[in-house]
């Protein structure tokens, strides 16, 4: 009888401090960061894990590609012409820990990085440079976005300029 009470008391004490153990399953395309007492302990991959609910928490990250596409955006070029552009790209989480800390919602980061890089590279180009071929600008944008996404724990998988028309500029004026 005393032993029974002792066991019950121990269970209640454990529950008080650690909560109940819960089972968590991470799928093939998911990664997780295990936090213990609020601090990150380790990264966990696909599988089944036991987590003490009162002490531990797992932040799950989806590693499937995040698609970004943007159509018919206008930007003023360096020589006064206007470019109407569109692009598509994709990125995925490479480092879960960095990705979690990069923004409140890490899935917004690829769109932000690609939009910023595209606009700033195009704004620094001239109409004649872009008319000669936009591959250079595209690779420049991709390089900048790649570096920026790497800082946020992400990998740029693809980037394409899907639409680029230039209005105004020296050649059109002639």
């Amino acid at each position, binding site marked *: 009888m005393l032993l029974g009470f002792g066991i019950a008391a121990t269970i209640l004490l454990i529950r008080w401090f650690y909560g109940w153990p819960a089972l968590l399953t991470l799928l093939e395309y998911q990664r997780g960061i295990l936090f213990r007492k*609020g601090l990150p302990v380790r990264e966990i991959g696909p599988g089944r894990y036991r987590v003490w609910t009162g002490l531990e928490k797992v932040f799950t990250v989806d590693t499937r590609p995040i698609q970004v596409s943007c159509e018919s955006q206008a930007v003023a070029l360096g020589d006064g012409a206007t470019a109407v552009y569109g692009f598509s790209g994709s990125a995925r989480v490479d480092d879960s820990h960095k990705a979690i800390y990069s923004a409140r919602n890490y899935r917004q980061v690829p769109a932000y990085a690609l939009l910023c890089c595209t606009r700033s590279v195009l704004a620094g180009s001239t109409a004649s440079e872009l008319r000669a071929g936009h591959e250079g600008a595209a690779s420049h944008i991709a390089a900048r976005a790649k570096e920026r996404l790497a800082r946020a724990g992400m990998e740029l998988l693809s980037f394409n300029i899907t639409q680029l028309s230039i209005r105004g500029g020296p050649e059109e004026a002639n």
Partner: protein
Amino acid sequence: MTDLLWQLVFLAVIVMVLVALRMRNKKRVYVTEYQRGLRFVNGTFKEVLGPGSYRPLFSGQKIELVDMRPQPVLLEVFPYRDAFQNDSYISLGLELLVDDPYLATKMLKDQVSDSISVARDRIRTTMSHTVCDGSLEFAARIADQITSSVNDELQRLGMKVTNVEITELPPPHRMAEFVGGPN
């Protein structure tokens, strides 16, 4: 003696069960490394909690969570009137984040959207005192000015901006038209 011991054990178990049942309704609050918790007791702010697992011990206690991670914000083709009263625009990207979790919670219901309104206002005011020459130096200088101007205002609300990046300035030929000035 044995009877007394049994009574004590029984009493202890009863107390523990009652406490456990009471605690069942008190949800544990988990504060991760990128968050801060604000402990309020009977509606009064008491302290900022760092990473850890907390359980409100009595009904008057409440813990509010604040996310300290940055929120990227894009302002594209943002219109303003420059120092010569000419219509102009600027595109920029910035990151908003919480500087003081207590102030941010006390002053703003929606920390991101309310701060964006304040930031837009300050950016417009800052830009209205400038005349853009389209140069990279101007872009760098204006990014610093915007950062300090917006932060002066957001500081009162417990927020701040970082990594202000000018992605587009009006083209130089339009600036040449503006150089004629208000006359």
